[in-house]
């Protein structure tokens, strides 16, 4: 059965523009989606990529299982319960990406690049990583089979199940990983927070003069060169680029974004961009 990726809508929050797109209108807020991706079609069972926030920024209370945009409600659309998820793969461990790992039993194995867990616990960024999330993951690390730690380097990707692999992103955070999914219509790259905003960073990248030069985000822990290299690497591999805070993009060879996903599945319907980039 071919692999298919479903977009799970986990709500939205207001983020600051210059965190998403470096130096863009500092102080102004932008509505920002939060998604998880559900990979269906593997013989080993459903796979989830990231689990969203424990409590959306600005929300008055933590996410409740009965909320329409909770992970539970979204999984229910597919008749799935938390315990049905075989693997939870993390692009990285910022609070908006692993906040609800603790609704899953330890039989749902969490897949993490070890360096990301190390960084998350190291105090290098207490704002973006949450202590409560880190401590849950420490419990998993000390529970038989509850965590699968990868030691990703810049070399070969690691296959998790047939058609789904992880590779070191090289951008955003020190341990961020891209999830590569082989679909019937090319490779989908789930790129974590390498890309926050497809239009402002890739389609009409603010302030870029050079050909096919993306705009980096304002939330990166690595160097500018590393961030740019990582963006270009992800684009070069992708037929589909799936960020965690925006609608996915259709990507042509050469890293050119040619359309946006308008449905809820990848592969799925695409709206061609009205104006193609010329630079």
């Amino acid at each position, binding site marked *: 059965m071919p692999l298919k990726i479903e977009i799970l809508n986990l709500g939205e929050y207001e983020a600051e523009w210059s965190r998403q797109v470096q130096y863009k209108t500092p102080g102004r807020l932008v509505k920002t989606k939060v998604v998880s991706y559900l990979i269906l079609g593997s013989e080993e069972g459903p796979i989830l990529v990231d689990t969203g926030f424990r409590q959306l920024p600005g929300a008055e209370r933590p996410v409740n299982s009965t909320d329409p945009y909770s992970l539970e409600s979204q999984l229910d659309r597919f008749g799935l319960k938390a315990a049905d998820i075989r693997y939870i793969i993390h692009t990285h461990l910022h609070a908006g990406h692993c906040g609800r790992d603790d609704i899953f039993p330890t039989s749902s194995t969490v897949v993490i690049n*070890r*360096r990301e*867990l*190390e*960084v*998350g*616990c*190291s*105090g*290098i960024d*207490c704002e973006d990583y949450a*202590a409560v999330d*880190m*401590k849950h993951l*420490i*419990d998993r*690390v*000390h529970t038989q089979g509850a*965590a699968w*730690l990868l030691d990703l380097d810049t070399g070969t990707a690691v296959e998790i199940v047939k058609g789904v692999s992880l590779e070191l992103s090289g951008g955003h955070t020190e341990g961020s990983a891209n999830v590569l999914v082989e679909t019937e219509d090319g490779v989908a790259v789930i790129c974590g927070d390498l890309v926050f905003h497809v239009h402002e960073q890739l389609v009409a990248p603010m302030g870029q003069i050079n050909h096919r030069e993306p705009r980096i985000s304002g939330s990166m822990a690595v160097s500018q060169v590393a961030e740019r290299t990582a963006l270009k690497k992800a684009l070069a591999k992708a037929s589909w680029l799936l960020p965690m805070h925006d609608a996915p993009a259709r990507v042509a060879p050469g890293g050119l974004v040619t359309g946006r996903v308008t449905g809820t599945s990848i592969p799925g319907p695409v709206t061609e961009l009205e104006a193609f980039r010329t630079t």
Partner: protein
Amino acid sequence: MPLEIEVLTIGQVYAERAFEVKHMQPGRVVRVPTNVFLIKGLPVGPILVDSGFRTPEIMETIGMRATVSEHEHLEVQLAERGIARDEIRYIIHTHLHIDHAGKTDLFPMSTTAIMAREEIAHAAGGLAGWAYPSQDVKHMIDRVYTKDAAWLVDGKTGDVIELFDGVAIEFAGGHSAGSINVLVETDDGIANLCGDVIYSLKNQCRQPFAERNCYEPRISGNTVFGEREEKRAMKNVYYNCRWIVPTHDTPVRMLDDKARTLGGALAGNIIPGPLAA
């Protein structure tokens, strides 16, 4: 006031000889002390170096028997000296292994725990899961997230950072990813509180097991670095101080006139102090 170091033995551990000294007498178990240290004479009050293991039982999780006698308990020893826990302003961790950070949670968050960032990172990453108990790691994460409860030092092997007048830390580059040596300037030269970079002064330095070359230390069987890095880290300690102060052995004073040559062992528990005959 000149700085001095008081050695507090907080328990005994029964460990494989080959764990202490690589490939030496495998299967033979030896009893070694677990020490923590008080650095005295600073205006901030006494500084504790390491906090020992949580309980004897937790050592069983790594297959080691341990004992703590009534008078060995860290809490008892501090009380006997009239030191309340909240009077310890800083705890420096040479590293975060099971027998070095187990009792840090007895101290309030106003006691700042000092450690290398790479050590807490490595402890959390699960690479040596058994050596870093989840209770200890989670307590450290709480400190990392509590204002001023942790002081994380960043650096690379060989970097020396002076934290207090006469007290510096040095990135060891041996034993564990973020091991640091604590260098204390005493009236009798530098005392190097080297954690587990050296376990056994006799079998690793004085009569190094199976080594043939001049001043070549024997590495331990518990390392995360390569052999060359371990040797460099050990030589850095034993070539460059007056007192070698390991966690699991009696401190030794180096000879004045013969560099790199071990002299006598400390007789009492204060450094500098008289040597055993």
